[in-house]
């Protein structure tokens, strides 16, 4: 299948995020067939985290369908997905298949089922808080399914705290004050394009500990770099220590070997 599409596995291995600053640090972008976690800095920033994940999915998926599995409680707490708003981020709602899951286990189950479907462009998984079933084994299953289908699986962990996981990268996202709009007829202090502060908390390739402020440009489907920092005091607000992935890898020798050279991540 991959050969038929005429693209080599090497070119497929990473997808560009669309920000030259971030892509440069990541070495060309994020790994395509992998699990990526997007945390929100507090529940109030869940919309930013979800939008950041959508934007990543848009970058990765071309024109292919996207599946978004969302736990009911997230919608109750932070609002239901509003299709016209997605269109204004650049995602045509026609491409989206929404799965509403009742609880954490259903979210993971539906997410894994979707991650096994290679024709998709990306899979978004949004559980609430820290589901009991979301452990190292569950994330490893997701990562494995993602790798087999060569499909990015983006887990939005709003209201959750980082736990050991098999994710290839871990982000913490919050809204940033928007920039002044130029050349617009309406009020001068109107809110502008979506701005994010994205901190890369962990990266398997070792680029962690950096933060960027970026603005999403819907027309170009790319980011505009605003600002770049070493990781700021912002991340200190995140509760919970980060546990290196290798910590739980001993009982899976094959897995440990595969990721052995990236062990410094964490």
């Amino acid at each position, binding site marked *: *299948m991959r050969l*038929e599409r005429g693209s080599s596995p090497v070119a497929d291995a990473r997808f560009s995020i669309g920000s030259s600053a971030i892509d440069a640090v990541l070495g060309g972008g994020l790994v395509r067939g992998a699990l990526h976690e997007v945390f929100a800095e507090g529940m*109030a*920033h869940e*919309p*930013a985290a*979800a*939008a*950041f994940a959508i934007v990543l999915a848009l970058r990765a998926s071309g024109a292919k*369908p996207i599946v978004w599995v969302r736990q009911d409680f997230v*919608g109750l707490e932070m*609002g*239901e*997905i*509003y*299709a*016209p*708003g*997605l*269109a*204004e*981020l650049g995602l*045509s*709602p*026609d491409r*989206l*298949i*929404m*799965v*509403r*899951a*009742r609880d954490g286990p*259903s979210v993971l189950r*539906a997410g894994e*089922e*979707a991650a096994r*479907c*290679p*024709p*998709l462009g990306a899979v978004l998984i949004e559980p609430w808080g820290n589901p009991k079933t979301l452990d190292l084994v569950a994330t490893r299953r997701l990562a494995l399914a993602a790798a087999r289908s060569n499909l990015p699986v983006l887990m939005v962990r709003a209201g959750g705290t980082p736990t050991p996981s098999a994710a290839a990268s871990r982000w913490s996202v*919050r*809204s940033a*004050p*928007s920039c002044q*709009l130029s*050349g*617009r007829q*309406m*009020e001068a*202090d*109107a*809110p*502008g*394009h*979506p*701005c*994010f502060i994205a901190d890369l908390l962990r990266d398997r390739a070792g680029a962690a500990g950096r933060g960027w402020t970026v603005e*999403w440009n*819907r*027309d170009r489907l790319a980011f505009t770099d605003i600002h770049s920092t070493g990781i700021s005091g912002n991340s200190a607000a995140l509760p919970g220590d980060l546990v290196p992935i290798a910590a739980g890898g001993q009982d899976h020798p094959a897995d440990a070997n595969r990721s052995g050279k990236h062990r410094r991540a964490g």
Partner: protein
Amino acid sequence: MRLVALSRQAKRAGLATGISLADARARIPDLWVEEMDHIADAALLDAVADDCDRVTPIVMADAPDGLTLDITGCDHLFGGEAQLRLGLSRRLRRAGLHTRTVIAGAPDTARALARFGQVAIVPPGAEAAAVRTLPIAALGLAEKDRVAISRAGLKTIGALADRPSQLFASRFGEEMTHRLRRLQGHAPAPLTPRRPIPMLWLERRFAEPIGRSEHVEAALSELAQEACARLGERREGGRLFEACFFRADGAVRRILVETGRPMRDPAIVLRLFRERLDSLADPIDPGFGFDFIRLSLLATETLASLQSSLDGRAAEEDQVADLADRLSTRFGAGRVLRFAPENTHDPARAARAVPVSFNPMTSAVWPAPAQGEPPLRPTQIFDPPQPIHIRLVEVPDGPPRRFSWRKKEFDVRRAEGPERIAPEWWRASDAGSHTIGRDYYRIEDVEGRRFWLFRAGDYTTDASPVWYLHGVFA
């Protein structure tokens, strides 16, 4: 209180329906009386009807105490009409039910004979003759019409049939002559089955009830293969599959599987059934085993030929459709959704979430965002909108400068508005609302969080109009 139903012994003792309880007790002091329970009766009729489904999928309820089965083309499976009738009566008697069963060429004939007649099986074409001796009540007319006919000296259907029908039509209306013709089998009777009539159905009967899940699955797999082969002959694909499991003790369990596109691949159909059986909150209990399994196709569509696998794009679309089917089967069609645009300016109605398999046939398209504009609509929306407290606001029509939501204070840094959105007064749900419209504001607080607020009412007519938070932006 009056008697409404009697056992055989009570009838033999001389009681009849309609007499008062005091009368009956006076005649038979140790009479056993139960209060009439219509709900339990309806439930019993339903259960018996479910069990009769094993004879034919076309079962009509004839409330409160009858069932009509369309056995056209089914009797040979049971060794003829007489055998079918005998088997069914025996089965019901074992369950403790006394029934009267009549087989006739027309449903109304059979129904009337079962209630009023003595015949068991009416030979083809003899319907008119068979009903001649029945009382007028067999027509099922209103009580006053029945009394009127009786007063005229006409006691039987035969007496009625011998007279010209125009006489009755002018006196009792067209309806009566229709009833008479249907009773005689001269006019077709409408069928109102309690369940949809399948386009195609396949059955497996087992000499011994099967209970092990692998046997059940094997039987289902064979049925699916046969069904798909039949669909292939008809150049059709199934959209709605139903598997009925009939337990030996009469309980029936139905499992429904829906696909987003016409389908005749037995492996996929079976996988969907497995998914569904797997996800049942109350798993199918085989009890003493199933002795009968039926696979019905409730909806089919034309499907010319199976797509060639060379066309990679079509194959990929099919894979996505299969995924949607599997998810819908496991989590319910109401939980696997896509969005359909609506032609409305009311933001709460602009997008409808519909099941993936559902085609809403809408002419609306998603509005294309203008080049260079920031998002004007939020990515997430609250239903209902969340009330907020305004601390500081520019009256009369400026944005709030500070507000609190969920016990948190927000200082506004940027704002745009108002954007007035009027209610859709032509809709019933909006007609009663007194608001002239909503003034929407896009708000950004000092931390960069973006909100969509609106004010219901305005400051010129209302000292303190209510503010709501309707959505959040990225």
